[in-house]
């Protein structure tokens, strides 16, 4: 089921199917975890543990219930932090007219981009031994240069428009211009980037946990579980398979969800390529020219049907935005 060809809300079905289970387990799991039972032998199946026991004899299912939260929360926190820093910096770089300021913001990040993220994590972890919060901070730091570039590239086009100058002429504050107009114009691109980044951060957080950064060696954490229970994988696969599948489902589901949210819904009937509705009145009121549709909507969202308003007699026909529609011979 390709989200691109499925119209309407059905395109969310697959994403939600895949994402709901790990997300619910991660966020609500600890409520159902209950008390820890007595320790059993490691890597055994059965005996009341329907998913078996892990490397220290704890019930795997209980660990799964408890282990989602750290992963999800760290990943979300890292992404949010990365954007909280990248958004203002990217907007400053895009909106400034001072060349030196733009260079000052962007060049240091170019240098940081060259540093491999995992290596950086390992280095810092070796020196500082961070906890979960520290890990979130580190992962955010690693993602910021990329996010700043993405924000600047996405907003550069909108920042050069006359609308920004018009807002300045109105004395509008920098924040309302930057976030309210420029940021809003680049929303789709930024949302797509956020989806990709979240998936990447999940991967990085999980990898960090595999390597023992940011979590105790016996913590209830899906990624840690995958690492620690590897040794007994052929005795008792569920201790590895369950958390691994859940991490994968989380990453895939997030990606698919963002994909589906960003897919434009299919056009309904009665509209041409540019999302026009048939003109409600054909302008046969004397000298008034036809009040046709107003030209392509930038997001190509279907226009709501309009009630025929009385055409003003001096109003002219629509002019295409920016590039004139006639320059495209294939209209």
């Amino acid at each position, binding site marked *: 089921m390709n989200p691109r060809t499925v119209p309407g809300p059905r395109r969310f079905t697959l994403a939600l199917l895949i994402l709901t289970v790990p997300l619910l387990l991660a966020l609500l799991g600890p409520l159902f975890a209950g008390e820890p039972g007595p320790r059993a032998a490691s890597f055994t199946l059965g005996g009341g543990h329907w998913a078996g026991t892990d490397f220290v004899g704890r019930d795997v299912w209980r660990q799964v219930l408890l282990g989602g939260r750290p992963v999800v929360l760290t990943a979300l926190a890292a992404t949010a932090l990365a954007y909280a820093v990248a958004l203002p910096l990217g907007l400053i770089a895009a909106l400034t007219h001072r060349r030196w300021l733009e260079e000052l913001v962007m060049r240091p990040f170019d240098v940081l981009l060259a540093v491999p993220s995992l290596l950086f994590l390992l280095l810092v972890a070796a020196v500082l031994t961070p906890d979960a919060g520290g890990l979130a901070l580190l992962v955010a730091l690693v993602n910021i240069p990329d996010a700043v570039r993405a924000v600047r590239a996405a907003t550069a086009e909108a920042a050069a*428009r*006359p*609308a920004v*100058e*018009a*807002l*300045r*002429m*109105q*004395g*509008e504050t920098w924040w309302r211009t930057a976030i*309210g*107009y420029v940021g*809003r*114009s680049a929303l789709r691109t930024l949302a797509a980037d956020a989806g990709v980044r979240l998936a990447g951060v999940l991967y990085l957080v999980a990898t960090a946990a595999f390597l023992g950064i940011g979590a105790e060696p016996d913590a209830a954490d899906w990624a840690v579980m995958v690492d620690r229970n590897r040794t007994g994988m052929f005795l008792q696969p569920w201790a590895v398979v369950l958390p691994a599948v859940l991490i994968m489902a989380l990453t895939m589901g997030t990606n698919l969800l963002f994909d589906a949210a960003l897919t434009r819904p299919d056009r309904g*009937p*009665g*509209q*041409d*390529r540019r999302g026009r509705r*048939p003109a409600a009145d*054909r*302008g046969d009121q*004397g*000298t008034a*020219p*036809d*009040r*046709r549709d*107003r*030209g392509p*909507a*930038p997001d190509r969202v279907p*226009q709501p049907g*309009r009630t025929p*308003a009385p055409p*003003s007699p*001096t*109003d*002219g*026909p*629509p*002019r*295409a*935005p*920016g*590039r*004139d*529609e*006639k*320059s*495209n*011979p*294939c*209209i």
Partner: protein
Amino acid sequence: MHLNEPDAAEVQDLRVEIDGRALVDGVSLRVPPGRITALIGASGSGKTTTGLALLHEHPPGARVTGEIRVPDGLVGYVPQHPATVLNPARPVAALLQDIARTQIRHLPRRDRRTAIRQRILRALGQARLQDGETLLNRYPHQLSGGQQQRVVLAQALLTGAGILVADEPTTGQDAVTKQQIADQLAAVAREGIAVLLLSHDLEVVRALADHVHVLRAGRIVESGTPEQLWSRPQHSWTRALLTSAAATEPSEGPPVQNGTDETASGPAAATTVLRVRSLIARHGKSTVLRTPELLLPPGCSAIMGRSGSGKTTLARCLAGLHRSYDGEILLDGVALPRSLRDRTREQLAAVQYVFQDARAAFDEHRPVLDQVARSAIRLRAAPRTEALAEAERTLSTLGLPGDLVRRRPTELSGGELQRAALARALLARPRVLICDEITSGQDAVTRRSLRTLLAGLVRTHPELSLVLITHDRDTATLATRIAVLDDGHVVEQGPADELVTAPQHPLTAALLQPAPDVGVMSGMRG
């Protein structure tokens, strides 16, 4: 001369439908060779669709019925913005060679090179491109707009097409360029090529065309020669379209009373609102504008010039949008800071600017009313409800009803958005309102309504100083004072009446001439 030759193209009962709606509804016409046939009508009347149907192009998903016969099989097409069809990554010679190469396959290899060159030079000559040889090695972005258009024309002619479809060739151009384009098309027709001119520029159509079809809502409502149509229009729509093309509407004439008052007050330094002193503006390293002295008194002033003469740079310097300049701009004797950011709220409110592209100057996500009211909220610290009420009042005086302005900009037409932009600027209660080419690129009906609006503004706001940046003669004649720029220098400035009746500089005369004059050309055609 060509009367007995078969038509270069013939269209019978063309009907183009999309989703049940007819873009073109039963159009039949013939395009004879060596003649210029024009299709006129408002935007959206089906001109472009008909023109493109000759190329067998139609909007995706459209149902096309009817018969289109092009015996030659080849149709040339010149779009409105020629730069968009030139490959920017290849020099002009390569673009033309690609076409020429397909035509000389039958020749032996050693003759091909010279044959290609001959064809290219001939096509460039037909397109009236001077120094064609020197331009061959340039890339499209290194050519001026006029040269790009001629290269596209040469491309079309090189294919050996017997018919050329010219889509809005003169829209948005200044008078001198319009003349050149008109001459080009007339020359092409003289070579025996049929030209189908799609335009809403009625002056050019009247001067150039041999036969005119009036389109409305996809149907031809009237056809005839320009003389017939202009003197005895039969259909009411033709009458409406052609009378709106009448140059200056007599009932809304320029405010002559103000003009005489201003010119009588000698140096007028005391009443001057805006004064430019020793302005030297730069783009990067190169100087684009040198204005030793420019006076803009209260009332309506116009700054005219060809494209690229520096008018927009001057306007942007006045507004504070262009900050790399030396010299001073004085508002009531007080120097204005160069950059917008350094201006106080009062200074910002005093000088307002209306952009050429109204659609790009609005935020497409917010309702128009909110954006218009924002001027008052930010620049005059007015409370929100009051600002909204004032915005709605101003918009309705400009002809935009309340329910329309509560919509997003995407649902308004270009003309309506231009009025909304005017309202947005007016809400700041400015002393100086700079309108940058707001009538260019619009069709005749919208242009006329905007001109009426501007003339009305001058009357209802006597303390407002309107500065019109334009290359359009009819807009400039609304002003009482005109300054003409050429290549960054002020070549002439003075009262509008003087410049219109007795221009000193040849450029002034060229820009203020009534209409492209192809009378000589049409007389020479058989």
